[in-house]
């Protein structure tokens, strides 16, 4: 016979179990989108506003990985159950990933309607996936060292800058790789003229080389470097902080540093992944991020505040100055280039 006390105890037990199980049931019904994304100011904005709004609208949770590098982790995960659904990297890594079948070749307007409103460079044949933003790789320089604003990439070779010019460790940094290709264009027959590029690179010695753009920013801010290769965002983000640094886009053109989103072919939440890319291309989302980190938005319909509009690549005429590297070509000979530049820049 069941006593009143034991019945109450049993009922309470069921209630407690149901309460404990509820979040997991809810969790099972809520889709999770696994993405990669940057840290820093970009990551702050994403976590504070962009991602929570997406989660609310699409009734899902977003799991964001900010620990770079992402591609080795994707490589190590099973192809039929990839670690990420949306893969955000720069363009060179997307080309490596597509070569291994880890991401999709193209994203079209059929999957992502907002693709209809992007500048042509964002979906050009130089891009795998879709570029949602771009920066311009040019020259950053100190304004307190008596230097004229650089107008050409050749200005970096000025003998006065010996020892105070900055570049990148080319094997590990895509800005360094872009700079090498640009040297081929400026001093030789084109972006793929590696012999001319190597010769021009050697002429830049002594040069301070760093791994990451963040280090270049610090070197410019501290005065360790007077002029260096950097993307516009890396300089403009100090706007209003009274720092004696500025950015110059050389006349030969600036290289595009695209922020590319792509979807893994075996993602279990592909529709949600496409919805996320579409969301990231919405004018209001693009505006928040573009003005937050000084990235040029890919969506033509974005209206930035005058301060940002004046400097970023927001018109057809401006984006025409962007040069997109052929990463497929570069990646195919990366090992040879790495060995050559490592020897060349040593010592």
């Amino acid at each position, binding site marked *: 016979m069941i006593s009143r006390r034991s019945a109450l105890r049993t009922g309470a037990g069921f209630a407690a179990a149901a309460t404990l199980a509820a979040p997991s049931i809810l969790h099972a019904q809520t889709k999770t989108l696994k993405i990669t994304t940057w840290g820093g100011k970009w990551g702050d904005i994403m976590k504070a506003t962009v991602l929570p709004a997406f989660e609310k609208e699409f009734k899902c949770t977003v799991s964001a990985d900010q620990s770079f*590098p992402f*591609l*080795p982790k994707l*490589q*190590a995960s*099973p*192809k039929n159950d990839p670690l990420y659904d949306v893969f955000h990297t720069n363009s060179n*890594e997307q080309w*490596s990933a597509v070569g*291994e079948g880890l991401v999709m070749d193209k994203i079209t307007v059929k999957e992502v309607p907002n693709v209809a409103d992007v500048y042509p460079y964002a979906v050009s044949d130089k891009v795998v996936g879709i570029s949602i933003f771009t920066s311009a790789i040019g020259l950053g320089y100190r304004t307190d060292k008596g230097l004229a604003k650089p107008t050409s990439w050749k200005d970096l070779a000025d003998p006065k800058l010996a*020892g105070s010019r900055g570049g990148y*460790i080319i*094997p*590990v*940094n895509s800005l360094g790789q872009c700079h090498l290709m640009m040297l081929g264009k400026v001093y030789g027959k084109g972006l793929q003229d590696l012999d001319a590029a190597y010769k021009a690179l050697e002429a830049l010695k002594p040069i*301070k*080389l760093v*791994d990451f753009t963040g280090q270049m920013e610090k070197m410019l801010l*501290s*005065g*360790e470097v007077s002029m260096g290769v950097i993307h516009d965002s890396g300089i403009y983000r100090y706007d209003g902080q009274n720092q004696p640094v500025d950015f110059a886009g050389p006349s030969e053109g600036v290289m595009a540093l695209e922020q590319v989103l792509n979807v893994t072919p075996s993602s279990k939440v592909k529709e949600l992944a496409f919805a996320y890319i579409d969301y990231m291309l919405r004018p209001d989302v693009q505006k928040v991020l573009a003005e937050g980190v000084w990235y040029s938005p890919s969506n033509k319909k974005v209206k930035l505040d005058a301060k940002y509009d004046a400097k970023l690549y927001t018109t057809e005429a401006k984006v025409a100055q962007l040069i997109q590297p052929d990463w497929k070509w570069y990646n195919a000979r*990366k*090992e*040879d280039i*790495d*060995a*050559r530049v*490592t*020897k060349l*820049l*040593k*010592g």
Partner: protein
Amino acid sequence: MAVAIVQRQPISRVAPIAWLIAPALLLFVLFFALPFGVMAVMSFFSGNPVSNPNAVLTTRHYERFIYDSAGIYHDALWATLRIGLITTVISLLIGYPLAHWMARMQSRLGHALVLMAVIAPMLTGIVVRTFAWMTILQDKGVINTMLMQWGLIEKPLPLMYNEFGTVVALVHIYVPFMVLTLTGVIGRIDERLEQAARSLGAGRLRAFVEVTLPLSLPGILAGSLLVFALSISAYVTPSLMGGTNVLTLPMLIAQQVGTSFNPNFAGALGIILLLVSLVIVVAYNKILTRLSGEQGLA
């Protein structure tokens, strides 16, 4: 009752120590033996055999290193070993006197204070300590700025972005490992042996060289191997302090995984580094064994 005793016997044969060792063994198997095995297997494949059906068995990654047509891999191996050896020797030269002093210290308070001083740097992360060295040694760092302000030099001294800066930072990071290892061994050497040598006419130096030093060889071996192993596998410090003028195998391995996306060649480089290190460790052990006249030290 008798049956019950017979049934329990096999269980009681498992020594209690085995249960205590099990977690460490499991840790070793899961986080060293297994990953190492995977790495070794991967180094003989052209791609990832799990995700890529076209991956084939090959020795090309090892050939790439051996023939070194790029002309950088052998240099990187030699630089790795050179930095490891120099760091070990300097750490030993700095660490031994300190460890000897600590081990012979009569005051418990004094010993505790010195011990704290030795351990204190270890409470700060390696990255932070390396950045601290960068602020001291870089062109616009503390030393160069001071020397230039005093008019002693016109151009900054090349204190960083070379092997010198790398070794300085590595020695600072790894000296505590040497000191702590040596202190334990020297502390266990019976001080009366040295006193007996001196009472038999040996000078302070001779008593040290012929009594204390040989008895502390196991500590020297253990400390040296520890510092050597840590130095040759260091990644953060050589890459930050060495710039482009220092290229070590761990840096190349990181490059292969992180930016060339070639884990197979990275695996081969890892195996090569381990094999070369093992040869050096065995040779070092044999030399010290012969010097001490013992059968084996480690």
